[in-house]
């Protein structure tokens, strides 16, 4: 069973006109829901930058749920239709960097669909619980910086002058590459 003591870290981006209203409607109807979700209100799903999702997931969010108006029903006519393309692409992209595709979902919930919202939240939260916490980065921002400060040196610098796992020598080509453009820039 998932950790019952503490909420998972789930962020929701909800459009103001439909889904935020739907979430309100679910509350007004006193539909019992998991508490894990923290909702950020945005005007439109078209405002949801896929980078917000990436940022959240890379900063330790266990799941991100975006919800907007149903297609054809957007308060701004087209916002959710742009969002659908952007978010679908992101959804398909995330697995390659090792983030389970179940951790990000986008759905359509209208302001009148309180019970649908409850279902969405419940199912998404269940899904995240079944996936467990997202893998953590080894060092969090502060510990690493603290460590660097303590050592007074750049310990975070990778071992750039040592061979990597493949046994390949590190490359210095890029430094030369920068030289490549020296002349062009000097020309200006």
């Amino acid at each position, binding site marked *: 069973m998932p950790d019952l003591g503490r909420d998972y870290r789930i962020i929701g981006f909800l459009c103001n006109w439909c889904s935020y209203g739907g979430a309100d409607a679910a509350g007004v109807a006193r539909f019992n829901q998991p508490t894990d979700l923290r909702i950020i209100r945005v005007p439109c799903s078209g405002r949801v930058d896929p980078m917000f999702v990436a940022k959240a997931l890379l900063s330790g969010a266990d799941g991100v749920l975006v919800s907007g108006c149903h297609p054809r029903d957007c308060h701004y*006519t087209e916002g959710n239709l742009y969002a659908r393309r952007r978010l679908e692409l992101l959804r398909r992209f995330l697995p390659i960097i090792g983030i389970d595709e179940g951790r990000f979902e986008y759905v359509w919930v209208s302001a009148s669909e309180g019970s649908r919202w409850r279902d969405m939240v419940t199912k998404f939260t269940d899904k995240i619980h079944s996936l467990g916490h997202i893998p953590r980065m080894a060092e969090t921002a502060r510990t690493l910086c603290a460590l660097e400060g303590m050592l007074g040196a750049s310990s975070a610098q990778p071992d750039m002058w040592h061979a990597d796992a493949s046994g390949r020598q590190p490359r210095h080509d890029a430094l030369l590459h920068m030289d490549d453009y020296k002349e062009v820039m000097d020309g200006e």
Partner: protein
Amino acid sequence: MRIGVMVCHAAREFPDVVFATDHMYACSDPGQGTIEQTIRSLKLDGVVVASCSPRMHEVTFRRAVERAGLNRYMFEMANIREHVAWISLDRKRNTEKATDLVRMAVEKLRHNRPLTAKSFEVQKRVLIIGAGVAGIQAALDCAEGGLDVILVERRQSIGGVMSKLDKTFPTVDCSVCVLGPKMVDVGQHPRITLLALSEVEELSGYVGNFEVKIRKKSAFVDWTKCTGCGACLEKCPSKKVRDSHNEGITTTTAITIPFPQAIPKRAAIDPAVCLHFTKGKCGVCKKVCPADAIDYDMQDEIVTEKVGAVIAATGLDLFDHRKCGEYGGGRYPDVITSLQYERMLSASGPTAGHIKRPSDGTEPKTVVFISCVGSRDRSVDRPYCSNFCCMYTAKQAILTRDHIPDSRAYVFYMDIRATGKGYEEFVRRAQEEYEVQYIRGRVAQIYPTTGEDGNQLMVRGADTLLGTQVEIKADLVVLAVGAESAHGAPALAEKLRISYDAYGFFLESHPKLRPVETNTVGVFLAGACQAPKDIPASVAQASAAAGKVLALLSKDKLESDPQIAQVQTMRCIGCGKCERTCPFGAIRMRELRDGSKRAEVVETVCQGCGICSVTCPVRAIQLAHFTDSQLLAEVNALCRTWDETTES
């Protein structure tokens, strides 16, 4: 920065937070007073109120903050009621979640900037869609209030459902006699432009400055010439056309004026049935028209109007009882709908007020009414109550006993919902004075009788009060069909950018406090397009909507919402992607002196969706009040908490 946090009875550790308190009802007058006082005494720069949904009270609190001398956008709400307290009973988790939500609001507020509204001119004109009793009432009220009204009706005449009714309940007034004078007023009012046989094609713009494209469908009759004399109707050879004004219980001609009181009283041709169009060989109406008004080549016309506000009053349609096999599914001619019965009862209707069985034209002696056909019935996906059927059924039962004194009337009902003024008394009169037999129970089956009395209908049902089955041999069965949203309502909602529920009824902004507004500023609702309503409720809502419009357009200038896109010109690379994706055409490219280009937002046109912000590769265009930094602050507020909680 100095931030105050007020928690409505429903945390000082946050950065910049210098004051935190709680209050029993923050939105109340003393609650708002406390907020104002605190801002002044502690010289706060911003306020977070943790209470209900911002969709509910954001405007209220912004005003309070403004009264205390702060910019109204230096305010944030944490929704700890609908999103926390009301969805879970787990105190510990709720507290943690509420704390997080407040933290997020505080972090966002730290990135808020004062925003100032710009003002813009408004069109003092209103578009009203639908000219049933609600649309008519709204049009007259707005016009009397000094606004120019564009009234669009998709049918040939205004009047809507009410013009089809014989009598109204509970007064048993003649419906069209009450409505008729109002229809005439609409036709004659100098401020009302009536566009019948027309539909809204497209709505663009924003509150105060909408632009609407209206399709005036071709009537194939020049209405500037037509006098409504009716000569063409008499001579038209195709006489078997379904008469929709009379709900199909009689037929009409291909060129028609729907009813004597029609406004505008003009003829129109239905090209789907007219022989000239279907067979290409008739031209009778053109020959007989004394005004030379017939024009077979007439085309649809698109007219464009500028208006400041819109009232949707598109009314309702009725449930199609053919979905109900237990009532014959449309197989039995003597099972009719309540509106068909209404036409029959009407003195100006096709039977001149005589009740006749459609099958053989005889007068029925036993009439059975069945309530809730297509209402309160989940099996046909109509779980809602249609509001007025109980009452019109009582009225029709009374009229039946009036018209045919030796008749018997039975009503099968589930519950009687008679909540209006004088309604319960009216139902009582039907039961006691007119001896209408009310049977509490559903009808299981209707089937034609056979044998000697083989032309009747057997109505089998349950009497749940007696706990027995009942069978009634009826001559006529009237189905109290429920209300549905008008066909095409969802498509219109999409054009108006308003929401609608699962059944196609338009969604009001708040069910209690903003019942005539929609979520699109400047678009209002009147009548049964919002939910099934009877005449007084529709008229009341229409007047309410008109009042809202009059208040809105009483100002010469409106303030624009400053939550719109803003370009950081220094960072813009002039690629123009925002211009291409803006749904409103609110971004244009401005050329600088060096020939390079920068994006520029047309402030009154921008609606604040933020699509551009995500499109911009540099994120140089930012949506004020929902900037990347503000949203990131919320994300970071959460992630940081989590870091701390996992490390500790």
